[in-house]
C-alpha cells in the first residue's frame, strides 16, 4: 500500500465524534479545531478528496502543529491512528513547504554521523565549567546564543553551576544511607545485549548512556555498542519518509547480530519498534525489519524483565534500599514510552524497588510539550504546556523528577530552570545507577 493510500485509509476511519478534544494538550491551550486531531484528520481527508479549499502550505502548517504525543489515538473510540496520519500527511505535503531553518539544520546533522559527532564535541566544550565561565565572563555566551539560537537555552549548563543538575541522588548515595545491595557486578555473563545509542544521548547526555551501559553490565550482561545511525523518527516527523527508511535499513543491518536491542531513549525505542511498519513496503528489508523491531526493548522494560527472571536467585537485580534516604521521587511518562510502547509500570516498579518514596504526579502521562523539535518551533504553546507539567511535578513535593527520554529530559530541565524550581530532573537510569553504586563506591556525578 502506498503512503497516500494508507493515509486515505486512516483518515476515513474517523467519524468526527470529537473525543480527541478531551485529551489533546494543544487543544487544551489553543482551543481551536485546527489544533485538535479531528481537525487535522478532517483537513487531510478533504485535501485528499480534493475539496478542501485551502492550500497545501496552510495544511502543512496545521499538521506541523502536532506534538505526536498520541493521546488522541490512545483515547480514540475508533482507534484512528492520528499520529501516523500526521506523519504520512507531512510526508505527502513536504514537497510544497520549506521547513524552518532550524529543522533543516537538525535534519542535515542527523543524517551525517560526522556532523553529529562534532556537535557532541561542541556540547561537551560548552558544558565544561571552565569554558562556560569564560563564555559568561567575556559576554561571548550572548554570541553563542546569537549563532545557535534558542537551542542553547535547552542545553543543561555544566554541573555545579547555577541552573545545572544539583545532585540529590549523588548526595544521597555518597552519604552512605542507601543500603548498598547493588547489582551482582561483573557476575557470569548472562548473555549479550546491544545498546542503541540515540543521537541526543550521544551529543547531549553521554553520561546517561554510560549509566545505562554500566547498569546493563552490572546486571550481568555483556554490552556491545554497534555504530547506530539516527533512528529516523525526527526525519519521519519532518515528512522525510524516504530518508527515515534509509536510516532504518542501516540500523537493521548494523544490529543484525543482536539478540536484544536495548535503548534508553523512549523516542528511539518507539521509532525502532515501528520499523516493521516503516519498512513494510520494502521487499528487501521487510522481514528483517519486523524481526528487528521485535527484539527492541526499552531499558526499563528490559531491567524489569531481568529482575523478575533473577528474583529467585536474588542476585543481579538492581535493588538498593533507599527507604531511609528520605528522598521523594516522581516520574513523567514520555509519550513515546507510555503510549508509543505501552510501557507504564516498569519504570515505576524499578523506582519503587529502590525503596525511595514514589509519588505520582497529576497528569504524569500528558505530554511535556517537547515533541522533538516542536518546542523550538512552537515556543509559546510548548512553554505553556511545560509550565503546567512542572507545576504538577512540584505539587508532589518531590525533590527528583525522573523520566525516560532525552527529549523530555531536555524539555523538563529547561522548564525547571525557567520556573526557578529546585526540582532535579534526571533520566531514570542515572537515578538507578546512582543508587546501585551507592554501596559499591563513590556515586557518579550527574555530569
Amino acid at each position, binding site marked *: 500500500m502506498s503512503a497516500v493510500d494508507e493515509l486515505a485509509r486512516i483518515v*476515513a*476511519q474517523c*467519524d*468526527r*465524534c*470529537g*473525543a*480527541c*478534544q*478531551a485529551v489533546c494538550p494543544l487543544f487544551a491551550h489553543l*482551543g*481551536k*479545531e*485546527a489544533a485538535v486531531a479531528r*481537525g487535522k484528520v*478532517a*483537513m487531510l*481527508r*478533504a485535501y485528499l*478528496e*480534493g*475539496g*478542501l*479549499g*485551502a*492550500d497545501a502550505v*496552510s*495544511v502543512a502548517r*496545521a499538521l506541523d502543529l502536532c506534538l505526536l504525543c498520541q493521546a488522541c489515538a490512545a483515547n*480514540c*473510540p*475508533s*482507534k*484512528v491512528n492520528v499520529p501516523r496520519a500526521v506523519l504520512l500527511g507531512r510526508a505527502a505535503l513536504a514537497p510544497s513547504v520549506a521547513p524552518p531553518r532550524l529543522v533543516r539544520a537538525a535534519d542535515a546533522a542527523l543524517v551525517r554521523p560526522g556532523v553529529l559527532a562534532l556537535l557532541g564535541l561542541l556540547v561537551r566544550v560548552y558544558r565544561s565549567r571552565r569554558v562556560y565561565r569564560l563564555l559568561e565572563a567575556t559576554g561571548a555566551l550572548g554570541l553563542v546564543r546569537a549563532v545557535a539560537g534558542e537551542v542553547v537555552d535547552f542545553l543543561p549548563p555544566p554541573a555545579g553551576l547555577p541552573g545545572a543538575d544539583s545532585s540529590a541522588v549523588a548526595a544521597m548515595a555518597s552519604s552512605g544511607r542507601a543500603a548498598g545491595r547493588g547489582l551482582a557486578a561483573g557476575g557470569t555473563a548472562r548473555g549479550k545485549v546491544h545498546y542503541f545509542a540515540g543521537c541526543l544521548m550521544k551529543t547531549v547526555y553521554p553520561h546517561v548512556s554510560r549509566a545505562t551501559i554500566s547498569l546493563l553490565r552490572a546486571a550481568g550482561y555483556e554490552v556491545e555498542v554497534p555504530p547506530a545511525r539516527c533512528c529516523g523518527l525526527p526525519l519521519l516527523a519532518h515528512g522525510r519518509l524516504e530518508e527515515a527508511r534509509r536510516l532504518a535499513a542501516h540500523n537493521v543491518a548494523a544490529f543484525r547480530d543482536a539478540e536484544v536491542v536495548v535503548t534508553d531513549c523512549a523516542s528511539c525505542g518507539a521509532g525502532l519498534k515501528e520499523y516493521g511498519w516503516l519498512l513494510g513496503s520494502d521487499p528487501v528489508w521487510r522481514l528483517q525489519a519486523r524481526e528487528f523491531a521485535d527484539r527492541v526493548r526499552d531499558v526499563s522494560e528490559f531491567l524489569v524483565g531481568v529482575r523478575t527472571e533473577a528474583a529467585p536467585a536474588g542476585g543481579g537485580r538492581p535493588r538498593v534500599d533507599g527507604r531511609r534516604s528520605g528522598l521523594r521521587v516522581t516520574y513523567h511518562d514520555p509519550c513515546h514510552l507510555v503510549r508509543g510502547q505501552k510501557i507504564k509500570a516498569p519504570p515505576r516498579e524499578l523506582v519503587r524497588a529502590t525503596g525511595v518514596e514514589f509519588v505520582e504526579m497529576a497528569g504524569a502521562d500528558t505530554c511535556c510539550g517537547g515533541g522533538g523539535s516542536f518546542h523550538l518551533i512552537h515556543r509559546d504553546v510548548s512553554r505553556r504546556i511545560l509550565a503546567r507539567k512542572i507545576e504538577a511535578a512540584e505539587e508532589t513535593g518531590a525533590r527528583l523528577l525522573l523520566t525516560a527520554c532525552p527529549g523530555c529530559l531536555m524539555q523538563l530541565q529547561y522548564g525547571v530552570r525557567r520556573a526557578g524550581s529546585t526540582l532535579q530532573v534526571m533520566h531514570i537510569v542515572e537515578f538507578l545507577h546512582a543508587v546501585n553504586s551507592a554501596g559499591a563506591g563513590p556515586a557518579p556525578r550527574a555530569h
Partner: protein
Amino acid sequence: MKEAVKRQLLDIVGEDRFFDQDLDRFTYSYDGSFLPLVPPHLPDAVVQPVSTEEVAAILRVCHAHDVPVVPRGAGSGRTGGSVPVAGGVVLSLQRMNRILDLDEGNMMALVEPGVVTFDFYQAMEKKGFFYPPDPASWKFCTLGGNVAENAGGARAVKYGVTRDYVMGLQVVLADGRVIETGGKAVKNVTGYDLTRLFVGSEGTLGVITRILVRLLPLPPAKRTLLLCFGSVDDASTAVVRMIQGGVIPAAAELMDRVSIEAVARAHPVDVPRGTEAAVLVDIDGEPELLGPQARRIVAIARDAGAIEVREAADEAEADALWLLRRAMGPAVAAMAPNKIGEDISVPRTAVPEMIRRLQEIGRRYGFTIAIFGHAGDGNLHPSILTDLSQEGNREKADAAVAEIFRAALQLGGTLSGEHGIGITKLPFIVDALGEAQVEVLKSIKRALDPRGILNPGKIFAGGAGR
C-alpha cells in the same frame, strides 16, 4: 464577509479570537454528523466570545447586517446542528467555560455554555452532588450543546434528560437583547415556560449564555450488571418487566450482536456464545437496597431467558463493562466507510417490534444495521453500515432511513430521542409533527428571530426571513 462586519467583529473579540483563514473556516464546517465533509459548508468567520456582553455585541452586528450566526459547542452533535449551511459566523462558545456558582442550599449550579459535561459532573461529584444527564459524548461535549439539543443519555430511564435539570437560562436574542428565563424558584408559572422552549431549540431561537441547573444528592452506591440474552426480544422483555416490577435501573443499555462485535475489534469483550443481545444495567441508591435490587434483576433476567448474568465486582470492572457501551457508536462507525447513525425513540414496549422492523429493513436493502441504545426509555440508535462511494448506495440508504423513520412513527415513536433534527432529519419533520404543528414552530421562530439569522436551515425547511 463584508469588510465592515469583519472590522466590527474584530473590535469585539480581538484578533486572537477571530478566525477567517480558509483552513480555520474549513475546520468549523462540520460536526459529529455523517454529512459529507466535501463540499464543505464554510462559515465566513469563526468568533470565540468569552462573555455575554461579547455575544450580545456580536449578535447586534450580525443582526444589523443580516449575517447568519451558528452557535457551536464542541461540534460533537450528530445531526448537523452546528454546521453553518448558510455561511455567516460560527459562534464558538468553548471559551465560555466557567462554573459560575454552586448554591449548595438550593442544590443548583450556574454555568456557562462551554463547560464540558463531564468536567461539570466531576466538579459536582466532588461536592457530593449529582448531575445525571450523561450523553455518550460527555467527556468532550458541552453543557450548552446539551441544552440546545436537549441531550439525553443512559441515565434517562431513571433520571430524565437535560430538560429535566434546567431551571433557568440566560439567552441572547437575535437582535442582541439579553433575557433571563426561569430561576431558582421550584414552582414557577409566571408567563410561558420559555426555559423549556429554548431547551432543544438547536440554536435557532437564541444563544444560551448561562445555564442554571438543579442537582441531586450523589447516590451513595452503584452496581453494574451485564445481562446476555439469546434474542433481542428476551432482552427487551426483561427490561420492561424490571421497570414494571419497580426496579428502575439507573441505566439499561441494549446492544445487539453486531454492535458488540464492533467494539470487540478494538477492545477485549467477553460475552458467551449465542449472545444476540446484551443489556448493561446500572442500579444506584442506598447500598443496603442494592443487593435485593440486583437479586430481583437477576431473577427477572433469568425468567426472561438470560443465558448469562454477570455483576461487576468493583468499580474497575464496572468501568470496563461501560467502556463496551461508550465505545459503541464510533466502533460501529469504524466497521464500514460510512455509518448512518439514527436516533429514533419509541415507547418502551415497542422496542422488540421496532428492532424486528429494523432487521427486516436491513435485510431488504442489503445493509448491515447495528442496533444499540437505551432500552429502558425506548431510544434506539440503529446504524446503517455502508459505503456511500459505491454507486446506488446513497439512494438505497436514504430510502432505508425513510423507512426506519416511518416505522418509528407508526409505532408511536419519534424521529429523534436525543440528537435533535438539525439538517439530517429535516426532510421528515412534517411526517412526524404534521403541517399545522410545523407552522406553529415556524411562527415561534418568526417571533423570536424575524430576520432568520439564528442557525438558519435547521429543523424545518423555509425558515423565516431567508
